[in-house]
């Protein structure tokens, strides 16, 4: 008799727990999925998002501070001139290395380098993800919605 009681309890629990499980999973069918349809839908990012850099060529004095502080040595700088009159010639960030720590933004004396909101960069070769921000002939174009460098700068100064 005890065996029968235990058996029927187990059968009942098997049935009951199945329906408890279904009661948990089935309501999800009627909820909106969380998935965003990237790239058509872009997630809302906080203003402090650390994406690809925004760089203001005209402010940069090629002081090499950002390159020195970079923990992975992803910034290559070549400048011409001396002191405060120095002007940048090459400013390359190697995004195969960059870890988006934003340490480069901190020591900049002229506040010319900022972290932007763009988080996607694709290329077929490694060279395609090394960006030269100081290339005046082919300046890096900013995608729609991405703030221009001076806008970011004014945001940062507030």
């Amino acid at each position: 008799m005890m065996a029968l009681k235990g058996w029927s309890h187990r059968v009942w629990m098997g049935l009951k727990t199945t329906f408890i499980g279904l009661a948990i999973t089935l309501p999800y069918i009627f909820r909106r999925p969380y998935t965003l349809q990237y790239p058509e839908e872009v997630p809302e990012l906080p203003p402090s998002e650390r994406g690809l850099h925004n760089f203001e060529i005209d402010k940069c004095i090629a002081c090499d501070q950002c390159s020195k502080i970079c923990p992975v040595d992803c910034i290559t700088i070549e400048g011409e001139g001396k002191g405060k009159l120095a002007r940048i010639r090459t400013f390359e960030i190697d995004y195969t290395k960059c870890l988006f720590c934003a340490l480069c933004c901190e020591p900049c004396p002229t506040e010319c380098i900022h972290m932007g909101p763009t988080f996607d960069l694709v290329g077929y070769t490694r060279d395609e993800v090394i960006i030269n921000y100081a290339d005046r002939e082919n300046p890096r174009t900013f995608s729609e919605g991405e703030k221009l460098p001076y806008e970011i700068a004014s945001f940062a100064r507030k």
Partner: protein
Amino acid sequence: MIASVDPLSSHIAVWLAAQLGLDAPSWPFHAFAMLVVATIIVLLVVTPVGLGAVYLERKIAGRMQNRRGPNRVGPHGLLQSLADGVKLLSKEDIIQSGADVPLFRFAPYVVFVSAFVGFIVLPFAPGIVPADLDVGVFFFLAMIALETIGIVMAGWASNNKWSLIGSMREVAQVVSYELPLGIAAMCPVLVAGTLSVRGIADFQQGWFWNWMIFRHGYWAIVMVPCFLTFYVAGLAAAKRAPFDLPEAESELVAGFHTEYSGMRFGMFFLPEYALMFSLSGVATALFLGGYHDPVGLSVGMEGVGAVLWGLLWFLLKVGVLFFSMIALRWTLPRLRIDQVMYLCYKALLPIAMGCLVLTALLRLLG
């Protein structure tokens, strides 16, 4: 109207023979005509059902997990299954060294054919039964059992320990679950007094209390456990989660189809959904009144209207069962093999036998 497969094929045979100037078609003509009919059925009925089922499963699974499911190929991802099919067709067909090549090649066909042959006893609508066999229920159960042979062939021919373990599990599981499945199917047969699936469906015409599961109200005490037994055993016989031990991807890689690639893999993949559909169809016909609506509107209906009305209700009921199978898969974790055996021999089999005895008693008492 398609009444059965045979007349159509004999029409084609006669027509072919006439084209060649012969009076009566000899057997090669009949064989060829049957092949043509079978091809048409596979292309027009079986493949869309399989592809549609795969799409539904992925879509529902996605929504149950807060995802969207396929939505890139075609509107709402409707062509995803088709794209996957094309991909499978164009893949390299790999047969690894050490395999038993003839068995390896033959196994997918056995599984494919046995899963789809079960369709011919399904009563889709009044007058639309591919083959109204007198032993329909028995035939259907036999065809489910036949699938096991194909899977054992696949597991053995693969020369791979995962595949062999998978196919051994399949044998242990499916052969065990045949017992409660068959015994549970006997209860409606006892009540209706016929083994023909169409006959049992027609027996339940009228209001929903004529359905086997609610029969006269008090029969539900027997028939609801009986239906649940049939349903669970059917899940196990179709290797659906939580009973998908033969292919348990986390333990056995993919079980019996580890070594299969390309379209041969597809031939293992589609029958799973076909079996789900045909099991839902048979469960509908045996317990849920088949193609009859719940308020007795189908009584006295005739012609195309009756067919469409019946088809609608059949697909509706099958759809509900099909959906519940998918929902269960994405709800329950996979059982252990000893739990599977426990459920079969210690839970479902006694319940099914009790139901059979009670049904017989109730039938005797009127």
